[in-house]
Structures are given as structure tokens and as C-alpha cells.
């Protein structure tokens, strides 16, 4: 095997993680108390008899079981497969026999046990490689010692060390005990990337067998003897608070243990889900105003006021935009708006909490276990060390489970009742419950000179609780001499949350649609127009440039090539490209004009996320992101009336379904660059690729989402494909 020496850039972390090795055999390694207690249905990172711990990620038993721990929450991004693949690659482990476990929250073993921002892979890539490579190094050393041969004469494959000259081999299990007594090297050699044999292949989701046989692996499936079920009635309208509660009728219902009030919530606690659901309807709550009571119509009006008002927060300013517009040969101006969206993971919010005098046990689905534990500790006024947190598999997240509100609710109810409690949200609770992609409106203006060059670019974004709803350093910033980007925020009682690809999930649609409008005004091909701007950013950059121009050009060219851009006879193509969360994605949507009706036939995607770890997982992650971006751009809409969400379940709120999904082709750039994440980056460009294609096919420019509700598409049944 070809090996390359690398400098240990995070030596301290590495040594810390390896510290347990010095003691030889397993020495009371930090495994959480919850593991020891045993969970009724979960199969978490239990300690195996005689387990030899090599580092935070890896242990081997003398009878041959190699266990790789995956620390980050598994939400469908396939991290529980891709993380261990990286360790196994450097270890040269036999993938078919490794045992993979979800690690509990453990700050001593792991950093950033978090699923969000598409950040896990870039954060852990080197750590995971070193974990595998270090263990491999020690196992090879142990074999060299036993046989009295130089390590350079040894090779590894499928969890074995080989001495080819003599035809001898030893399994990792046979060497584990000796290996664990060898000092950890200060520096470890990582594989040459060209010799990867597992990374880059298509590896199936390691939890498929549990999923397809219906094993209870999700948070909602967690049951514990004596556990109570709690459902919580929160204010239906944002901006209201509880005035009075009459819970007598609910308390008298069968199976109900108690009805308790905390903050603005009323929790109905009982023995079974259905009994709680029924009793909940019997609770009589009166509310009174506690802030602004807003409707979507108010937001439309507020957006217009904020777009026109004098002051805004300046996010980026290059050159003199006023002068550019004064001297313009032509000005293009457009506005784009999106509604609120709930996250709607298929598994509704839930969490198990058991607050005991001696400590707290938490079990469930969260994207951010550390935050959940800290917030629980804060509520109870105890040290976080008193709390254990075990992760179940997450039935989707999309950012919703980055908030710990539902975990804290479970802790609160368990604390009041002094009992083990699982809080369950209904779908209605979820959609009405206050974690949304914020509604935003953008105004874009572009000035062109007589030759069609983009001389000025102005963007103002206004959003509900959206903070900075722009991403001021995004393309085309850096390619335009005169540019002004600013944002205004409206503070509302309607609470928001990070929704997959926060801000860019809609901003990308607006930016990439507007660039198409500008290209048309400049009488240029949309792809050529973007490439020209990028060339300009390269040769005469304006201000800071925070994206890699060559990588962006790379995906643009790949998407154009794979889609046969500009060569299709009966199809209208729309283009879009976006850089977000460290990865680059370009897309071409193809729309057929069937008797005046646009039919979306295909989407081509070109992706640069550096090295692809799992071909199967990565391809599906891109497809899934595109389906998500497409579905929400076309169909999904959450509106408010008098502070209350008007769509509370799937009968009133439309999500994309199988029939509406076009063919999607995914192409990856093969460049050997260290990998970046894929949980989010495929989603942002999709809406604009589709809208740009629909424009080309029908002459109708879609500027607001969801598309199905727009005047431009009146009478068109979007989603018909076949």
C-alpha cells in the first residue's frame, strides 16, 4: 500500500483521544451510565466483554469483533455509515464484519456531536482517518514484534496483517492485546487517497436491516417500564398567553395521571397515547394577548414598508452603486417572496426524560445532544455531568431538531411528576408549533451599461425574525464593481428555526432567478453570462471573494456538458448554480411545454463536494435535496391568520409525492479535495433551475413560492409528469 506521511495538525486532540491506550487493556473507559443500566429496546454502545479500546471511535475484542462508534446524530444523512467507512478505510478493516454503534453524548470522547450545517464530514474527516490509521499502525507494530520482521515488510487487508514473504498472517483480534500496549506514535501515516478501496464505493445504509424489518430504533419507539406519555397544549396563536385553565374534565378521563401547567403550556399526562390524545381535547384553556397578533396579510404589508424605508443594516458595499444606477443604460428590478415553512420531519418531535434525585436520563432524537443536555441542566439548575443522553435514530430533522425545546419539555414534565415521561408531539403540534423557515422578501436591482455589462447590483432583503436574510459574500459579489447588500428584520412573536440550508434555501432561488433576468436583459446565454462574471471575479476581483471561482466554474461546466446545454430541441432548460455549506452544486432543469403547460421532465446535477465517501449515500443525498428543494418551491405554503398557523396537517399542507418527482441525474466532480458535506448544498439551486426552465418554456417568470399558488400558473396542474 502507498502511504503518505502527513503532519499532525491537531496533535493535542489526537493524543487526548488516544490517551486510553496507554493503560493497555480496557480500563474503565468512559462509557455512560445509561449504557450500563441497559435500555429496554435500544442497542446502544454497550461494552463488549474484554473490549480493547484503541481510541474514541474504535475497539476490538480478542475474539474478533471490531466496533466503530459513530458519534453524530443519524438523521438520514447516512453519517452512521459514512463515518465508520472512513475509520475502516484507514484501518483496512473487513467492512462486512465491523460492528457499528451509535455513541451516546460524550464530551470527553467526541467533539461536535452535532448534525447541522453539513459540517460533520469536514470537521471529522482527518480525526476519523487518524483513528483508523493509528490503530492500524499499532496492529502492524505488534505483528512486526511478534514475527521479528520490519514493519515495512507487512501489509494489511480485511482485518488482517500479512507477511507476504513467509505467507504468514494474523487477525487484528489476535494482535489487539499486544497492540494496545505499544505507545501511540506522535505522527501517523495516512493512506494515499488514490489507494482508497472502501471510500468512494457504494455502501448500503448499515441500518437497512433494522429499518426494513420494523425494529424499534426511533425516538418514538422508545418505551420504558412505567413510562408515562405526555402531550402538551401550547398556545394556538403566537402572541397569546394562558389566562385560565380548566382541566377537571381531562383529569377525570380514563388513563390520565395528571394535567399540569408550566409556562404557557398545559401537559396532559397518561398511560397511553390515545387516552392522552382524547383527554387533551377536554382541557379548556382561555388565552389573552401577550404581543402582536399577526396574519400573513400583515406580513405582506410589512415587507413592502421595510423594502421602502430609509434605514437598513448594510451587509456589503463595493464601489458606488448610486452612480452606477445613475449612469445605467438599463435597469432590471424584481422582487421575490417566500412563505413560512414547517420542517415536517416524518417522525414528530418526541423525547424521553427521567428526572431522578441522583441524575437525569434522556433518550431520543436530537440533532444537537450537547445543547439539549445543557438546556436541561439549566432548567433543573444542575451540572450537565448529572445528565446522560442516548441518541436514537432520528426520523428526519431538516433543522427542526437543532432546537431543544421539546427535550426541555420532557425534562420539565418528568420533573413535575417525578416519573419517567415521553413527550410526544402530534403532526398538528409540529406544524403549528413554532419552528419555521422564516418568510422573506427580496428586492433586486441591477444596472447594465450599453454593452450589456453588469455595472451595479443592489439587494435588500426583509424577513420575519430572519436576522441577516442575505448572504452578502455570495456570488455575484466579487464580480461586480458597484454593489450594495442590506437587510431589515421584522420582529414577530412567530418563532423560527434553522430550516435545511437556512436562508439560502430561498435566497438561492431569488438570486439565481434574478441573474437569469439580468442575463436576458444583457442578451446573453445564462451559462455564458455566469462564466463571464466568474472570469471577471478572477481577473479583477472586487472586495473579498469567499467562494472558489474555479470550483464554481467546474460544476457549471459539468452540468452544462452532462445536460447538453443549449442542444435540446423539444425541452426548455433552466440553469442554476450555488455555493453553500462548503460545497458547489449546479443544476439544469428540463421542462417540456405540453400544450402551454410546463412539465418538469428531468434535473441534471453537478456536484463538487470533494472526495465522495459513499457513492450510494451521496447520490441519494443529492437527489433527496433536489426533491426537497423542488417540492417546497412548488407546493408548500404555511400561512397565518390571527397569529395561528392555517395549515396543520398533510390534508391542508402539500408535500411532494412520488408521482411529481422527475428523473434526476447526479454527477460528481472527481478532484481528490478533502470532502465537504452534502446534507444541504443540493437543495438551494433547485427552485431557480426549475423556474428558469418554466420561464423559457412558457414566458412566465415565477418570483414567489410556492409556484402552484401563483397567478402565472393559473390553470396549470404542476406536478404532472408522465
Amino acid at each position: 500500500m502507498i502511504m503518505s506521511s502527513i503532519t499532525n495538525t491537531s496533535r493535542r486532540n489526537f493524543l487526548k483521544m488516544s490517551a486510553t491506550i496507554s493503560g493497555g487493556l480496557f480500563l474503565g473507559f468512559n462509557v455512560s451510565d445509561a449504557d450500563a443500566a441497559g435500555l429496554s429496546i435500544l442497542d446502544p454502545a454497550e461494552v463488549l466483554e474484554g473490549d480493547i479500546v484503541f481510541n474514541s471511535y474504535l475497539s476490538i475484542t480478542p475474539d474478533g469483533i471490531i466496533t466503530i462508534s459513530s458519534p453524530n446524530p443519524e438523521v438520514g444523512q447516512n453519517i452512521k455509515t459514512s463515518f465508520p467507512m472512513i475509520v475502516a478505510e484507514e484501518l483496512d478493516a473487513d467492512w462486512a464484519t465491523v460492528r457499528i454503534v451509535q455513541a451516546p453524548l460524550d464530551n470527553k470522547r467526541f467533539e461536535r456531536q452535532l448534525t447541522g450545517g453539513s459540517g460533520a464530514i469536514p470537521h471529522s474527516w482527518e480525526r476519523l482517518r487518524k483513528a483508523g490509521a493509528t490503530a492500524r499502525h499499532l496492529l502492524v507494530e505488534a505483528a512486526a514484534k511478534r514475527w521479528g520482521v520490519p514493519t515495512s515488510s507487512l501489509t494489511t487487508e480485511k482485518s488482517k496483517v500479512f507477511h507476504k514473504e513467509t505467507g504468514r498472517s494474523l487477525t487484528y483480534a489476535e494482535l489487539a492485546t499486544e497492540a494496545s500496549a505499544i505507545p501511540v506514535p506522535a505522527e501517523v501515516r495516512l493512506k494515499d487517497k488514490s489507494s482508497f478501496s472502501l471510500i468512494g464505493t457504494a455502501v448500503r445504509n448499515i441500518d437497512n436491516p433494522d429499518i426494513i424489518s420494523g425494529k424499534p430504533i426511533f425516538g418514538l419507539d422508545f418505551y420504558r417500564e412505567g413510562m408515562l406519555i405526555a402531550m402538551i397544549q401550547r398556545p394556538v396563536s403566537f402572541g397569546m398567553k394562558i389566562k385560565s385553565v380548566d382541566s377537571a374534565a381531562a383529569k377525570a378521563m380514563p388513563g390520565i395521571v395528571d394535567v399540569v401547567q408550566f409556562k404557557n403550556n398545559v401537559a396532559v399526562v397518561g398511560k397511553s397515547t390515545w387516552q392522552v390524545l382524547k383527554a387533551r381535547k377536554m382541557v379548556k384553556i382561555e388565552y389573552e394577548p401577550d404581543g402582536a397578533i399577526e396574519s400573513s396579510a400583515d406580513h405582506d404589508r410589512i415587507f413592502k414598508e421595510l423594502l421602502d424605508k430609509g434605514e437598513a443594516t448594510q451587509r456589503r458595499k463595493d464601489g458606488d452603486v448610486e452612480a452606477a444606477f445613475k449612469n445605467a443604460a438599463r435597469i432590471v428590478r424584481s422582487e421575490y417572496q417566500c412563505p413560512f415553512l414547517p420542517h415536517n420531519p416524518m417522525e414528530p418531535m418526541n423525547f424521553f426524560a427521567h428526572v431522578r434525585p441522583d441524575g437525569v436520563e434522556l433518550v431520543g432524537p436530537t440533532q444537537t445532544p450537547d445543547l439539549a443536555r445543557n438546556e436541561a441542566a439549566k432548567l433543573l439548575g444542575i451540572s450537565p455531568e448529572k445528565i446522560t443522553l442516548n441518541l436514537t435514530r432520528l426520523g428526519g430533522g431538516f433543522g427542526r431538531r437543532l432546537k431543544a425545546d421539546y427535550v426541555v419539555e420532557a425534562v420539565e414534565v418528568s420533573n413535575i411528576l417525578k416519573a419517567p415521561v415521553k413527550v410526544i408531539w402530534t403532526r398538528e403540534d409540529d406544524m403549528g408549533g413554532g419552528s419555521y423557515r422564516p418568510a422573506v422578501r427580496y428586492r433586486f436591482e441591477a444596472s447594465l451599461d450599453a454593452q450589456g455589462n453588469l455595472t451595479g447590483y443592489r439587494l435588500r432583503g426583509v424577513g420575519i425574525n430572519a436576522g441577516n436574510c442575505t448572504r452578502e459574500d455570495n456570488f455575484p459579489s466579487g464580480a461586480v464593481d458597484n454593489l450594495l447588500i442590506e437587510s431589515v428584520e421584522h420582529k414577530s412573536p412567530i418563532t423560527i428555526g434553522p430550516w435545511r440550508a437556512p436562508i439560502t434555501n430561498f435566497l438561492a432561488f431569488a438570486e439565481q432567478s434574478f441573474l437569469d433576468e439580468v442575463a436576458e436583459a444583457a442578451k446573453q446565454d445564462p451559462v455564458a453570462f455566469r462564466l463571464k462574471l466568474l472570469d471577471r471575479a478572477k481577473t479583477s476581483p472586487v472586495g473579498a471573494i469567499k467562494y472558489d471561482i474555479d470550483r464554481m466554474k467546474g460544476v457549471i461546466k459539468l452540468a452544462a456538458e452532462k445536460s447538453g446545454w443549449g442542444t435540446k430541441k423539444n425541452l426548455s432548460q433552466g440553469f442554476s448554480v450555488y455555493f453553500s455549506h462548503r460545497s458547489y452544486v449546479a443544476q439544469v432543469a428540463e421542462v417540456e411545454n405540453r400544450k402551454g403547460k410546463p412539465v418538469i421532465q428531468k434535473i441534471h446535477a453537478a456536484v463538487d463536494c470533494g472526495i465522495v465517501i459513499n457513492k450510494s449515500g451521496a447520490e441519494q443525498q443529492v437527489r433527496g435535496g433536489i426533491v426537497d428543494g423542488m417540492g417546497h418551491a412548488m407546493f408548500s405554503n404555511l400561512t397565518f391568520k390571527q397569529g395561528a398557523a392555517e395549515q396543520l396537517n398533510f390534508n391542508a399542507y402539500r408535500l411532494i409525492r412520488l408521482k411529481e418527482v422527475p428523473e434526476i441525474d447526479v454527477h460528481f466532480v472527481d478532484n481528490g479535495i478533502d470532502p465537504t458535506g452534502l446534507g444541504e448544498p443540493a437543495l438551494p439551486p433547485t427552485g431557480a433551475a426549475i423556474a428558469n426552465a418554466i420561464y423559457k418554456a412558457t414566458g412566465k417568470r415565477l418570483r414567489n413560492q410556492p409556484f402552484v399558488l401563483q397567478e402565472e400558473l393559473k390553470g396549470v396542474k404542476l406536478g404532472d409528469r408522465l
Partner: protein
Amino acid sequence: METIKNSMPKYTLQVNGKPYEADVDADTPILWVLRDHLGLLGTKYGCGIGQCGACTIHLNGNALRSCNVPVSAVGAGKITTIEGLSANADHPVQAAWQEVDVPQCGYCQAGQIMTAAALLARNPKPTVAQIEDAMQPNLCRCGTYHRIREAVVLASNKMK
């Protein structure tokens, strides 16, 4: 409290070829009987109004959204859940799901598999349009639809 408990009707259900007893209110949806009372947790709650398909089971071989059908409506009907679809998770649909590597988060997949299995039981050689019609009630929030379609076709081929 005791009198209320005693007044509850007792239901005997045929689930996955075995008899189960449940002491529940007549209006309790099958979904919650399976999950809360019989400990069969593979059938999922997603919406409670029969709109997402996560709770799909078979009643006498037909796909049924179990979240809004009361236990009292089952009678002597035979219920199959994901746990009972096959002895070793080797039903052609399950095998195809693994082969095509369909699941992402996996939460909706038991319902998807049950819907697909019911389709193939009554129509072993469906057209793509028939597959799409049958699978349309089942939401997948991760967007695994392409692979679902591919896996149903593969399962159909496996069934010969």
C-alpha cells in the same frame, strides 16, 4: 377507576398469525393498539389522519392506514404488520429495499414497504404508472422516491 377499566371491551386481534388481546377503548386506532398495547413498534405514526402512509399495515391482505381506523372495526380480520411481513426480513420487497439501498432516515419505510407488498400481492407485474398510483399515498420526507420506484420494480421481478 377500576369500574372504568372493567367496562372497556376486550379485543382479540389476529396479528401476524398470532392472537393478541387488548384492553382498550373501542375508538382506539389500530396504530396505537399495535404500538402502545401490543409492543409492535414497526408501524409508525406520522399524521394521524391517513395522509402520510407511515402507519400502513395489511388488513386481510389490503393496505390500510392504521392511524384512523378504530380497533372495533377489525373484527376477525387478519392484520399483518412490518414485523410479520416475513420471518427473516426476506420478503421480495424487503430484499429489494436492501438491494437498492432505499432508506435514508428510514421512518416512512415500513409503511412504504407494506404499501408495495400489498400492491404486488394483488398485481405481481404492475406497470410503472400502477406503481406510482399505489405508492402516491406514502410520503417520504427525505425524498427517496426514485429508489422506492426502482425497488418496487425490482421486487416485482424477484417475484417472477
